[in-house]
Every structure is written in structure tokens, then in C-alpha cells.
């Protein structure tokens, strides 16, 4: 097992010149991620935005150790995860990362309690401890009264709260949320986002993929705008500033949309242009 430890001060995730290519045929090479470098500090709330096909999800999958880059290095808590074997990646997914998906991705045959306890099973935690810890997390998302319910007996918002509880099961340092409010109405979405904010305030690093500039502006410390597999723009909150500047985020989004409309004009902006609000 190749485990390269690099001590990087306060940085929990670091992407160094990441490429992810998919060869569709002999002539066609899809560049899903085309040289991204960025770093995420511990406890940051990061939003990744960009049009469809810009490489957001691929990026998330690689950070979440579900996928490995074609080229480049990803460091998670100082460990180079881009060269690890599948079983080591699974360990990292189980211990250090919690996933929240747009479509909740709960296992339909298991109750809410069992869904939340499942990640702990893969870490070899005993049944009783699993149950008590799962109950604690269900309480945290205010669904402890629904412990015996199956996912099909819950509303969308409740399902996502169960998914949040599950993502916390092994007390990971990083939570990856892929469009966490994408399938929810705005009111339920707000509840879910408030839980994510609560988790962030308790010290967890959150990386969220979203299409919604309002969410990014409201909750994120940093917004990365991806286009054509590259970071086109970055907006970072100034120290002491409560929220990102709405106009700036909207401007990024609008630029992105217009950029998407101008898809043929490809601008190489490796690393992106950083704007500090």
C-alpha cells in the first residue's frame, strides 16, 4: 500500500493538477477533469458550481475516493489517495468521508436506524454500539421517532435527513454533498441546509455540489466555478465576513451560464481566476 504522508498545515483536501479522461473510442477522449488544482481547509464549507458536464461530480467522486484520477494527486488529510488500492479507498470512504446524494440513496429494505447503522457495520463496530450511535445521529436530525420506518414511509426531506445522519455514522471529517437539495422544495431544502451548516459549525468540512447560487451564497465559504473540467473562477469569503457577496456569486453563475452558451470557445484557465470578496 502506497501511503504518502504529507503534512500540510490546516489543509484537509488538496487536488494537485488532477486529470480524468475517459476513452470512449480510439478517436474520442472525453476530458471530464482537465487539470484542476485546489485545496480545502479543515472546517471550510465549499460549494462547487458549474454547468452540466463541467466535471463537478467527477471531481467529487475522486475527492470521495470513489474514483481515481488519470493523472495528478489527491491528498486527503495528508494521504495521497490517488494511488491507493480499492480496499484502502473503501476504508477511507468508510472512515473519513460521508456522502449525501441528491436522490438520498437509502437502502429500501432497511429501516432508518439500520440505514444509519450500516456504515458502522463495514467498520466492524458491534451491533449494540451501532444501534446506540445510529440513534444519537437520528436524534441529531430529529428523526429518532422514525427509527423503525422504511425509506418509502418517509418524505423527501426526512429521507435526506436520514442520509445526513448516515453520513455522520463513522464521524468523518469531510462530508460530500452532491446537490443535497436538488430533489426537495425550498422549505425542506432550507431545513436540510441548516443541518449541513450545523455539521460545518461542529468542525466538519463540507464540500457541496450545487446549481443554486443562493445556497452557495448563503452557506459557502468558498465557491469554485468549474467549466470544461477546469476551475474557471473562485470566490472566497473574507475573514470576518458572514456571507459571500450575492452579486459576486450571481455574477459567477451568470458568467458560467453564458460560458455554457458559448461552449465552443474554450479558455484554458488552469487554476482559475480567484476573486476575493
Amino acid at each position: 500500500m502506497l501511503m504518502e504522508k504529507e503534512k500540510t498545515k490546516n489543509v484537509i483536501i488538496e487536488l494537485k493538477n488532477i486529470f480524468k479522461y475517459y476513452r470512449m473510442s480510439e478517436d474520442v477522449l472525453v476530458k471530464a477533469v482537465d487539470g484542476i488544482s485546489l485545496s480545502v481547509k479543515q472546517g471550510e464549507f465549499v460549494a462547487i458550481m458549474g454547468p452540466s458536464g463541467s466535471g463537478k461530480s467527477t471531481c467529487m467522486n475522486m475527492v470521495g475516493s470513489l474514483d481515481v484520477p488519470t493523472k495528478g494527486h489527491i491528498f486527503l488529510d495528508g494521504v495521497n489517495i490517488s494511488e491507493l488500492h480499492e480496499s484502502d479507498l473503501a476504508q477511507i470512504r468508510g472512515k473519513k468521508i460521508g456522502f449525501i446524494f441528491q436522490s438520498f440513496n437509502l437502502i429500501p429494505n432497511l429501516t432508518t436506524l439500520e440505514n444509519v447503522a450500516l456504515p458502522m457495520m463495514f467498520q466492524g463496530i458491534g451491533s449494540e454500539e451501532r444501534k446506540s450511535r445510529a440513534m444519537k445521529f437520528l436524534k441529531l436530525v430529529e428523526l429518532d421517532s422514525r427509527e423503525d420506518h422504511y425509506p418509502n414511509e418517509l418524505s423527501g426531506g426526512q429521507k435526506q435527513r436520514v442520509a445526513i445522519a448516515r453520513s455522520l455514522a463513522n464521524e468523518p471529517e469531510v462530508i460530500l454533498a452532491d446537490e443535497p437539495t436538488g430533489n426537495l422544495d425550498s422549505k425542506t431544502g432550507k431545513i436540510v441546509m441548516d443541518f449541513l451548516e450545523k455539521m460545518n459549525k461542529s468542525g466538519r468540512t463540507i464540500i457541496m455540489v450545487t446549481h443554486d447560487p443562493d445556497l452557495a451564497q448563503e452557506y459557502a465559504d468558498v465557491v469554485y466555478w468549474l467549466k470544461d473540467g477546469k476551475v474557471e473562477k473562485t470566490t472566497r469569503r473574507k475573514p470576518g465576513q458572514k456571507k459571500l457577496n450575492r452579486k459576486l456569486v450571481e455574477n459567477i453563475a451568470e458568467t458560467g451560464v453564458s460560458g455554457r452558451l458559448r461552449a465552443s470557445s474554450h479558455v484554458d484557465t488552469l487554476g482559475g481566476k480567484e476573486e476575493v470578496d
Partner: protein
Amino acid sequence: MISDYFNLAFKNLKHRGVRSWLTLLGIFIGVVAVVALIGLGAGLKTAINSQFGVSTTELITVQAGGVTFGPPGSGAANPITTNDLRIISNVNNVDLAIGRNIGTLKIEFRNEAVAFISAGSLPSGKEERDFVHEANQAEVMDGFLLEEGDTNKVVLGYSYSVKNKERGAVEIGDKILLNDKTFRVKGILRKTGSFITDYMVLLNEAPMEDLLDYGDDLSLIVVKMKDKDLMDKTKLDIENALRRYRDVKVGDEDFVVSTPAASLKTVNSILTGIQIFIVIIAFVSVFIGVIGIVNTMGTSVVERKKEIGIMKSIGARNENIFWQFFIEAGLLGFVGGLLGVIFGTAITVFGIFGINYQFGTELVPDINLFLIFFALLGSFCVGAIAGIIPAMNAAKQNPVDALRG
């Protein structure tokens, strides 16, 4: 951890559709066949012995050789005759040699032809008659056995006393017609469980000769020995004597000399044949069951691709996924085996109950706990083995592709 896999597998099985359960049919039938076959083993032997008229009485029977249809000796090219009876009577260790005729007669009750049945003659002499009664387990349930002077009387097997669609129950004193000649029912025999004896009509030698006119021919000769321990030697002596008299060489015999051991051997070989047939069915069923489980688990991997992706995203390693599907396949097999054991045991219990009722035996179902344990273990193993390839396919799913579903 293993118990967690079982728990998860059990939950998944609970939510499976009918299609998955139907794949268990193969293993179910296989286990039912094996459990019932072994459980019914002793009972089957008893039943077959009774049906083939294998007597527990130690006697030797002699019949004409060759393949014949109908009663013993009928249609034989070179029948056994009273001359053969005389030869056998002179063989060492032969106490009694009794010639018997068994023929097919038309039987009518209340002027309605009911069937063609097998009628057996009773010889003269008390000792001879007693021996024939004993060999045929002929004890009266109602009325009396025939006496030597009874010319127009018969004793009927148990089955005639039971009411059926064609006729009412036959009672003592009723008139019956045998080949259009009137006889009165003097006695009805106890149930033996054998189709041969329960449907038999017994009548004395003289009226039987009147009806069938068989002259010197005999259907069979029944031999009672002085010393039962010399049965094999006596059999050889009879064979030698008949070979000399009938002028046939070893291997060309036109007669058959049987002992209970030989009959039992025949019965056992029939039983073994049945058992082999059932075991083949069991193997074919289990093989079909294995293919069913491979198919069902393969489909399940495709259907649950997203679930595999979810499990991987929350930390499941490839081996976790493998064990999950492997144990689930094993449990599928186990459930098939469990149902098979339950059904097979039920067949055994009811089968033995039926045999006891039919043949008046007191058999106990042979429910072997080791057999049940190994049947269940075997079913689990067969299921799990069938699940290896699907489980490997599940385990090696790429997490990102799997999450897309």
C-alpha cells in the same frame, strides 16, 4: 460480522418477489425426495414386500419359467405339473410339497359382472391347508375358512367386504358367480395390505378344477421344509432334481425355484431401482435449483447495482459485498432446503401413517436428525456455491458506475 451478513441477507430475502422463491423449487424437490425417500425407506420395503406377496413364512416356491402375464405359471411353454410335484416330494428335507392353482375368473355380484380376478385353490389335507393359509396370511375376519368338503363355497379377500361404486359390500352368505357358477361366501379374510391377497378368492381344488379345467398343470408348488436352516441346500436339491426330470441343463431351466431370501432380493433390487431413480430426480432438481439461484442472483446483482454503489460509497469493501451476496444465495438455498425438510418430513409421517393403515403394520417414521442437518447444510452450501459467480460480479462493480444504477 457474519451474523450481520445473515441479518442483511434475511432482510433482503424477505423483500424478494415470487420469481426468486420459484427458483427454490429445484432444491425444494431435491430435499423432499431425499428426506422422504430415507424416511419412508423401511415403510417402502414393507409395502413392496406386501404387494409382491413376499411371505415371512420360510417356504420354497416352484413355478414355470419364462415371462408370463397373469397368475403364476399361466401361459408358460412348459408348465409345472403334478409329476414335478411328485419329484419334489421325494427331495431330501422336503416335508410337504403342495401343488396350487391360481387362475383368472370372472366374478359377478348380484348378476353384475364386476371384474376378472385371481382365484387360488386350496389343497386337500389339513396340514397342507394350514400351511397355505399361513403362507398367505389368510385369517378370517368374518365367517369361516373353507373346509375340505365345501364345493360351492368361497372365501373372499378383505377388499370385497368394502363397499364401492360397482357393488355394495359383500357379506357372509351372499351369492356370487364365478365364471357363471354360483358360490356362497363362507368367510372374509383380514386385511393384509397386499393387492394380491386382499383381492384373492379362495376355493377348494375340485370346484377350481371344474371352473378352469387345468388337468395336471399346476400354477406353482409350495414347499415346506423339515429343517428351515437347510433352505439353500434344499433349493439346490430341488433344482437338480427338476433339471434331471425335465432334462434341462444349468442355465436353460424352464422353471424357477424361489426362496424368501431370493424374493426379498428381487424386492430390494426393485426398491434400489426406485431409490436410484428418486436420487437421480433429486440430483437433477438440485442442479436445476443451482441454475435457478445463479440466474436469480445474477439478476439481483443487476437490479441492485445502485444498492451496491451505495454500500461501496459508505465504506463497503469488495469482500463485504461478496459475502453479502454469497450468504444471501446460501440462505436462498437454505430456505429451499428447510421447506424441503418440512415437506419431506410431512410426507414421511403421513406416508408411514398410510402404510400402517393399509398394511396393518406398526412402523415408526425414520426421521433422522443428522439427515435433516446435512440436508439443510447441503442446501445452504449448494445455494452459496451457486452464488459465488454473481457475488464476485457484485463485488467487482465500479462504485461510480454502480451508483448511477
